């Protein structure tokens, strides 16, 4: 029991640190010394925690790391060659596939990322021109505020400042709540392993981009359907393409706002629902939806003991009065 309040305190400490760090980063260029600012931010943070336990407002101002990377997939350009699948498989040392990467029969079914494939390409029909196939590449969307990370009780996920959302198998105990929470059904689980099962998903080729390279799938795409770059630039590029060829695209950049924005953006010539994208996703990050609940926790911890303690004391007192006991007698009994 004693540990719980500590846990929830830590909760807010953690949140606060997070935000302070982010703020610090934003302020770096304005000449405030790192250390000083960090110190101040932590202090302010702690005061804020005391003053405002739910501390929801601090989050909303944070719009994500400014210079983070993202990807843009243009479904009007994708030719369904699966070069990206092959490149991803090789770059990440994944097991060889059952059917080779130029076997077109895979398109007869709908696939999804699995423990052996970070990304898959599926074929859909263009509702306007039934003969024309449309291909959709699926992989982790590297959300701005990832639901998977909000779900994980052990903090096995990190949204890196470079953009990729990474998972640490050394922490995971395999509850699979992240899979439940991911709005795009991305994380796969290695159910076949008895001893070291883990979550598997696209890592946006983190190691490559840290060394200045570009993700293998973007590199391999012969049609230029997958573009790597700063998310802000990609958003501009996506909008420019739609603006320049309004007949070719529907007027929507998927991922600009969905679930608070995703790192991977998409433009398409057919409505996204027809490509199996989830519809009716809220524009706010999923974590906003649980904040109200988590904010009530400290209240319960402080109000309940007072409330039920009082009820207990009051009823006990009433009983004592009913039994016609005087204060004195009660006291005597207590001493016995």
């Amino acid at each position, binding site marked *: *029991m004693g*540990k*719980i309040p500590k*846990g*929830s305190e*830590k*909760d807010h400490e*953690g*949140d606060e640190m997070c935000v302070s760090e982010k703020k610090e980063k934003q302020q770096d260029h304005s000449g405030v010394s790192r250390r000083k600012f960090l110190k101040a931010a932590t202090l302010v943070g702690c005061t804020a925690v005391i003053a405002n336990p739910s501390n929801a407002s601090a989050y909303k101002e944070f719009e994500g790391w400014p210079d983070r990377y993202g990807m843009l997939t243009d479904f009007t350009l994708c030719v369904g060659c699966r070069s990206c699948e092959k490149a991803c498989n090789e770059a990440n040392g994944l097991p060889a596939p059952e059917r080779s990467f130029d076997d077109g029969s895979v398109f007869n079914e709908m696939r*999804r*990322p699995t423990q052996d494939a970070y990304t898959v390409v599926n074929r859909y029909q263009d509702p306007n021109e039934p003969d024309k196939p449309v291909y959709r590449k699926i992989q982790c969307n590297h959300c701005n505020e990832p*639901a998977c990370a*909000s*779900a*994980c*009780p*052990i*903090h*096995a996920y990190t949204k890196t400042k470079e953009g990729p959302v990474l998972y640490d198998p050394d*922490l*995971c*105990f*395999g*509850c*699979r*709540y992240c*899979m*439940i*929470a991911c*709005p795009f*059904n991305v*994380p*796969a*689980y290695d*159910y*076949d392993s*008895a001893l*070291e*099962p*883990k979550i598997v998903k696209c890592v946006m080729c983190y190691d490559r981009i840290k060394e200045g390279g570009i993700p293998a799938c973007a590199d391999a795409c012969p049609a230029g359907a997958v573009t790597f770059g700063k998310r802000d630039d990609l958003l501009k590029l996506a909008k420019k393409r739609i603006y320049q060829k309004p007949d070719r695209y529907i007027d929507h950049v998927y991922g600009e706002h969905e679930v608070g924005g995703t790192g991977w953006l998409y433009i398409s010539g057919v409505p996204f629902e027809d490509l199996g994208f*989830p*519809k*009716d*996703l*809220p524009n706010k990050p*999923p*974590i906003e*939806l*649980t904040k*109200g*609940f988590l904010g009530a*926790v400290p209240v*319960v911890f402080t109000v*309940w*003991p007072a409330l*039920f*303690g009082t*009820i*207990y004391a009051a*009823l006990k007192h009433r009983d004592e009065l009913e039994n016609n006991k005087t204060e004195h007698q009660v006291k005597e009994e207590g001493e016995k």
Partner: protein
Amino acid sequence: MSHNGTVARIDDFRSWFMDKLLMGMSWPEYMRKMLTPFNVLAAIILSVGIPVIGMRFIYGLSAVTHASHDYPWGLTLGWGLFGGVPLSATGFIMATAYYIFGFKGYKPLVRLGVLVGFMGYLFAVIYLLTDIGRPWRIYYPMLMGFGTASVLFLVAWHVATYLTVQFLEFSPAILEWLRSTRVRRWANMITIAMTIAGIILSTLHQSALGAMFLLAPGKLHPLWYSSYIPHFFLSSSVYAALAMVIIVSALVVRFMRKSTDTNFRDNLDRLTIGLGKGAFIGMFVYFALKLIGVAHDDHWGLLATPYGYWFALEMIGFVLLPSLVLVYGVKKESAGIVRMGAAYAVIGVLLNRINVSIIAFNWQMPDHLHHIIPPWQETAMVLAIVTIHILLFRWIVNRMPVVRKEPGYDEH
């Protein structure tokens, strides 16, 4: 001399063993007593289920579950965690009624409630251990990494703490069984603190189990997804607990009569009716909250869809109807009808949890209803755990003073 001492000690141990573990019988007698139809059925279930559980740990989850990336949770958690925890609110409800609100008449049922609650949580953890990928890391949320923004983090902490609290609450029964007096006094002293801790932890994690689904708005059907879902889960757990106490106490009297005392038996019908009254009031509150939920999101239109019919069936057939059975039973002062209503209400709560965690979850997936049928291995595994749960419960009730007073231990 020392030889005699050893003999005496062996004799002591034998009589202790027979008294405490074999309920005063000798081995052959005890074994003969064990040969009942129920035990034979239990043995059959276990002989299938336990090897399957073994397979899960040797070959991995894919050997016993669907191992689906789209359906990470199946029957094991839908039944064991989401269904089991609300039915285990019995400890917190009975202790609160008795110790805090002073419903002294319910005393004969308090220990039973605490035991059902404690074992319910214990087994919820056991279901969890069979279902998570690396159960030996179960303590990681407490030690290795703090997912403080995660509702599951809260659930993990609270279930672990509450399990301890419930063990302490039940410990007087264990100590009486072992005929210890000293520690028992101490255990009695902390009862009020434990009860209040129980209220805090229970209200939070009962509602948190619902709040876990708040993260998945696109996946849970909008009729079940609601920003009120924590309130739904909490309020339904209250009446689920009352109904569970009604059912379990009836089963105990019916099948374990020897372990009950006259005080328990004589009061049971009256108490059952009292609990039934509490239960139907709780069900009306829950029903009203659910209606407010639909109205708040303005989802009336969805009621005229297949999932809408299913939702309406759950609400009318499994909340409203059982509550009316309870009302009728209370009015007629018939404990029998109240018991039927209680069983019906419990089925309704289970249905709701299965709906939220399995049937209405991923409802937009192609071929959804086909995917949610559990494989036989998972079913066998769950049945085996249920059986062990019942056997352990029976073992405890037959030995420890749960539904009877232990001679020599007075009121507290």
